[in-house]
């Protein structure tokens, strides 16, 4: 099969400060790869950390060594010795981010997903959700996620640092792969649990950034979606 990116877009937590958006995404549809990261807001410099991770992992397999090298690159961005006491303390605490990697393996007829944290991948056939990963219930988004950390001892102490799943497909057919950050994932799964497919239908119809922005604004105002940086990738996986 081949991956075609139908949509990629993001909406910042605060629309007046798009530069503070700490989500990061890189796509390589020719290589069947989607990489998404959500920098944790309670972090010293989660934006840089998320970007370093996606920039590296779009090119290479996700390994602890690769994460450690990203942490070294992160350390080169900062000089704690020249910081104020508060910045030095916050730097010492570290930066944290999710990482979601979806990779198509056409020869094996499957998509493999690796996930650290609470960014969500969905595997959809027409209007039916076949699977979601790493969460399958909206309540799980209330838990504090284990994330990839710039303090690498916090990664190796988690076992494993990420989970994987595989979604096989037939040679014939048509699937959607959706990757999204947590606020959107929680909102979508909550709808699905109620048997309400309208959220999925609306997401699948999005093709323009303004459509995602309109949806997110509307749901935030209604109190149905948490205010957070929100990113969505929609890809079709079709017979090549």
């Amino acid at each position, binding site marked *: 099969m081949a991956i075609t990116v139908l949509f990629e877009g993001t909406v910042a937590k605060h629309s007046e400060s798009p530069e503070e958006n700490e989500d990061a995404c890189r796509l390589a549809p020719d290589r069947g790869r989607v990489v998404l990261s959500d920098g944790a*807001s309670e972090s*010293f410099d989660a934006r840089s950390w998320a970007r370093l991770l996606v920039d590296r992992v779009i090119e290479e397999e996700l390994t602890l060594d690769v994460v450690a090298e990203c942490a070294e690159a992160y350390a080169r961005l900062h000089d704690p010795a020249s910081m104020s006491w*508060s910045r030095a303390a916050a730097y010492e*605490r570290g930066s*944290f981010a999710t990482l979601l990697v979806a990779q198509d393996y056409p020869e094996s007829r499957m998509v493999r997903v690796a996930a650290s944290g609470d960014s969500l991948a969905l595997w959809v056939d027409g209007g039916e959700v076949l699977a979601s990963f790493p969460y399958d219930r909206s309540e799980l988004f209330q838990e504090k*996620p284990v994330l990839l950390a710039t303090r690498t001892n916090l990664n190796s*102490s988690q076992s494993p640092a990420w989970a994987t799943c595989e979604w096989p497909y037939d040679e014939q057919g048509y699937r959607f792969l959706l990757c999204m950050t947590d606020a959107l994932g929680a909102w979508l799964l909550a709808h699905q649990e109620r048997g309400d497919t309208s959220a999925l239908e609306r997401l699948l119809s999005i093709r323009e950034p303004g459509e995602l922005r309109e949806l997110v604004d509307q749901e935030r105002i209604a109190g149905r979606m948490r205010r*957070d940086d929100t990113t969505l990738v929609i890809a079709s996986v079709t017979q090549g």
Partner: protein
Amino acid sequence: MSYSAEISRTSPTAFLFLVDQSGSMQDTMENGKSKAQFVADVLNRTLATLITRCTKSEGTRDYFEVGVLGYSGSSVENGLGGALSSAVLHPISQIEANPLRVENRSKRVDDGAGGLVEQSIKFPVWFEAKASGGTPMCAAITAAAEQLVAWCDAHPNSYPPTVLHVTDGESTDGDPEVLAQQLQQISTADGNVLLFNLHVSTSGGDAVKFPTSDAALGDAYAKLLFRMSSSLPPHLQRVAEEKGIKATMESKGFVYNGEIAEIVDFFDIGTRAAQLR
């Protein structure tokens, strides 16, 4: 009344410390420190933790407004000095910018090879140990209420303020229990003011956190402070459980001779990694 309001720079919450500085705070605790010194260390460490949580590479974000009221003799005063003496509650970035001094201290940390090494750290000080005169606890709670009524009027939809009261419990201006109940009636649309009490005592014994009854509490002062404390709402029970502290719907926001810096972790200001528990 759901305690679900987002805490953000456009909708901050408030954190007011109420600190006993009376003469009885000179007494020495089991750890060798005076109660006043123990309280000063706890307060400075708690402020630093709160600020660290709000600090990013570009600076400290104003998710909180913070103030300190100290009480002793027959008066209640702003517990913060210097540039912070003009008002009681300040955006947390102002607290960050105006410690009395920043001390160089050392702490022992894991060297990664099974040993410990000394590491130099900066320790900001906003609050000095002080102990003299009586314990006008009723006046202090009344002053806190005045501050928080005004704050809630100005922030009607914010997550409600939290009061952290640190004392040895020996009020000298009357029974504070009714006033404490009235303080907890102050509210925003999101919920009532929550009152946590930290009881510092020379009686010793193990630290107690968020007990469900006063049965194990040794003296009348501890029992009084237990009764004065807010019940933990469900969202705080959940956070306490995540931190490995047993909490139920009967748990009260009461701590005996314990560390309270972790209480500032009870406020959700965005995604936090599980590793930071």
